[in-house]
Structures are given as C-alpha cells and as structure tokens.
C-alpha cells in the first residue's frame, strides 16, 4: 500500500469544519482581565520606581573612556558579535538582515494550518527545545574558543580565530590586507549562515519538519542567539571586553 502523505500533526484543540467558535462578551470577560493586568503592572512598576533608582553617573566626559564601554543591554548581543568579526558585518548587516528575515517569515510559511496554537504541531515544542540547546551550545563554545585560541609565534597580544587565520595565511606569503577579510568576514559569514542552515537540515531529517516547523527552528535560533549573546555581553564581559565571571564584574564608575 502506498504511504499516506505526511499528515499535519496539529496539536492542541481541533476545530471541526463548520464548527463555530465559542464567543464571550468582551465586557466583562476581556475587559476585566485587561484591567487586572494593567493595575498589577502599574503597581509593580510604581513600586520599582519608588525603591530602585535609575542610574545617573558623572557628567559625560569624552576624554574619560570607561573600561569596558558597553551599549544598552539590547545591543550587547550585537556588541558581542563586534568582538568576533568585521564591524560592518556585526553592527549593520547582521541586524539589518535579521529584521528583513523576520519580516519575511509569513511570506515563506503560508500554510494557515497551525494558526492560533502554541507551537502548532506535536513536533513544535521538541523542535523548539532542540533548536534552543543546539544554538546555545554552539554559540557558547564559539565564544569560548574565540577567547583562548592563539598559536605559538603569533604577534604579542593577538589572539582569536580571525587573527589566527590571518596569521596562518600570512605564512603562505599572501599580504595581510588580502587575507584579513577571511577571518573577519568570510569565516563569520560561513558560521552565521551555516549554523542555522545545518539546524534546518537536522530538523528536516530528524523530525521530518514541514515549513512551519523549520520556521520554528530558525526563529528559536534567532531568539536563543539574542538571549545567549546579550547575556554574555551583559554578565560575562569585563575589562577590555574579556570574559569574566559575573561576580568579578566591576560596576561602571
């Protein structure tokens, strides 16, 4: 017997054809929830504003650079990338591409099935967990490797994958200008495209993922990257942006 086509293994509530949604009045069923949430949040923020002061340091002084100088926390993921690759790549191209790719999601995944259900399919949550672990492990490993890698013979004070690649290629007699892009642009690009690419291939093979499930894997990659890189930038980068433990961080002067 021919194999039946792969079913859309939707999870959660199943709506029968022509079944009407059960509706409730907005007042009071929704309005009351909104009111409770709003009041709770206003109270929580008012309490925080009463007891926790917003930071205010000395007046800006262009001649006194703090070490480390850090961007606002939501940019620390990008600042983390900045340590490992060309600034144009980390600071402009990656965030720009991320926003464009995010906006493109609904134009790639056009299947309406799975709407309105957390993780859509039975495989959705396992794929999310797998993708999050995959992303976190690889990115933490790469950050650690990039912090310590250094070949004997390299110039004093130089380290990181990018510098090591440049050093190795220089041994072949190529000029520095010609080879430095390999480490700072080519390898980071290959990694940043390759890691999600391999993830998509794995979930397709291992979970027979459909388009929606591949999207879940890729969004999880993006979401986890943001959290992992921002957390490293916030809690693990100390003087001269070297890795430190959170309890060794000096509060900004």
């Amino acid at each position, binding site marked *: 017997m021919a194999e*039946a086509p792969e079913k859309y293994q939707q999870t959660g509530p199943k709506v029968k054809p022509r079944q009407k949604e059960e509706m409730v009045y907005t*007042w009071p069923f929704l309005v009351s929830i909104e009111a409770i949430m709003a009041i709770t949040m206003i109270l929580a923020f008012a309490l925080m504003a009463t007891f926790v002061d917003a930071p205010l340091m000395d007046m800006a002084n262009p001649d006194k650079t703090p070490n480390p100088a850090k961007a606002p926390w*939501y*940019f620390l993921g990008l600042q983390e990338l900045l340590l490992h690759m060309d600034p144009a790549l980390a*600071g*402009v191209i990656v965030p720009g591409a991320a926003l464009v790719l995010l*906006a493109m999601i609904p134009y790639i995944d056009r299947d*309406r099935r799975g*709407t309105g259900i957390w993780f859509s399919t039975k495989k959705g949550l396992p794929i999310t967990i797998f993708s999050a672990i995959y992303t976190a492990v690889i990115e933490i490993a790469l950050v650690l490797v990039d912090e310590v890698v250094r070949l004997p013979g390299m110039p004093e004070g130089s380290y990181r994958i990018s510098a090591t690649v440049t050093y190795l290629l220089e041994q072949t007699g190529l000029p520095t200008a010609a080879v430095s892009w390999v480490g700072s642009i080519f390898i980071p690009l290959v990694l940043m495209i390759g890691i999600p690419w391999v993830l998509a291939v794995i979930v397709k093979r291992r979970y027979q993922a459909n388009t929606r499930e591949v999207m879940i894997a890729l969004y999880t990659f993006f979401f986890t990257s943001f959290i992992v890189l921002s957390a490293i930038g916030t809690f693990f980068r100390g003087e001269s942006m070297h890795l430190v433990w959170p309890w060794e961080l000096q509060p900004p002067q």
Partner: protein
Amino acid sequence: MSLWARFKNTTLYKSIYRNEYPDTPRNQVLVILNSVVLHLHPVKVPRRAVRVSYTWGLGGLSLLMFLMLTVTGVWLMFYYVPAVPGAYESMKALDTDVIFGPFARNLHRWAAHGMVIAVWLHMTRVFYTGSYKPPREFNWVIGVVLFLITVLLSFTGYLLPWDQLAYWAIQVGSNMAKVTPVIGSYVQMALLDGYDIGPSTLVRWYTLHVILLPLACIALMAVHFWRIRKDGGISTPIPYDEDEEEQEELALAAGETNE
C-alpha cells in the same frame, strides 16, 4: 431615590454615558460600541483567546508601557533641557528639586526597559502561536517595524541624561552604525550631526525621542490595532480541512484492520 440615581437621570450624565451599566447583553454590546477606548475591541471575543496563557497579555502590556512612558515623559519634558551641560544639570535638579522628579524618572527608565522586553516577548508569542500566518502577514511586518521603533525610542532616550553611562553607550552604539557599507559617513552625519557626539547630537536625538519616533509609533500602532480587527480578530485555530479529516479517519481505520 438616592442621590446617585438622581444624578444618573440628569442630562449631564446621559450626555456622557449613553447606556446603563453593562450587566445585560444589550448594554454589554453598547458599552463596547459607545466607548472610544473600548471600541478597539470587538463586542465578543473567542473564549479560548481570552485565556491569559494564550497571549499573556503582552500586546496590551506593550501599549500600557507606551502610555506610562508618555505620561512620565511629558512630566520629564517640563524640566529637561536638551543642551550641554543643561541636560545633566536638569537630571540633577530632577533628583533634588522637582516633586515626583526621581519617581517620574525611575518610572520612565524602568518602563522603557519593560517596553522593549514586552514588545520582544509579544513578537515571540505571536510567532510561536503561528499568528503571523495568512491573512495576518502584513500586520506581522508592521509589528517588526514597531519593534524597531521601540528599540530606537529606547536608544535615543538613552543619550538624554548626558552622563558617562549615556555618552559611552551611545558612542559604542553609533560606532556600529558608522561603519555601514557605502553610506556610512552619511549615516554618521544624519545620526550625530557631526563627526562625534556633541550638543547638536543631543538636540537631534531629543527631537527624535520626544516627537518623531513617538508619532511614528502611534501611527503604526493605529494601523496595527486596526488590522487585528480587519484580519479577523485575535488568532484562533482554523477548522480542519475536511479531506484531511477524512484521510485521517481512513488511515485510522486502515491501521485498526491491519492489527
């Protein structure tokens, strides 16, 4: 007749509230239709969509943060001077001389962080519930732009206190934008109004922060909310395809006979 009941009978009260307290179906409909704030909602909503565990109220909380930031922001604007060193001095004055000054500044700061987080989590909720799927594609795009505007609002506000934290965070942030391929020097000029952060940068970012970006945000929020309704309201599971249902039953039946 109590005083309150009598008041409710006056022309004044009736001119404000067109309907009785909403405890009958008719008035529960009218209260939504007659109120400018409540009419953003439909009269009825799907029962499954009002569960907190479905939306976590994140879209509404994003709006709430925006409102809190508007109120506290106006309070701060009364005292803030976008100049060097006036900006920093007004921060100091806010802490010592202004009633509710520290409270308003703290609330503004924490709500700003809260809004970035709320918008970010809202986007994540919408993604994982598949709520970007057709016909809601374009509202997702508007949402991505709103996320960008939220971050830009926070980032432009970050410079305004003109302390070391602000100055060097913006230095790091704008150095990233400076290296944009091809148009980097134009981006730098547009952002900083010069080669480095200075008094004219402060005026520029202040203007972006208090008028241009909030207006853009309000305009896009209006479209965002409007389109939620036009795209069919809050997302709910779509009915199963009948053919698929049939196939599934057939497959089940086949499986049973095989065993």
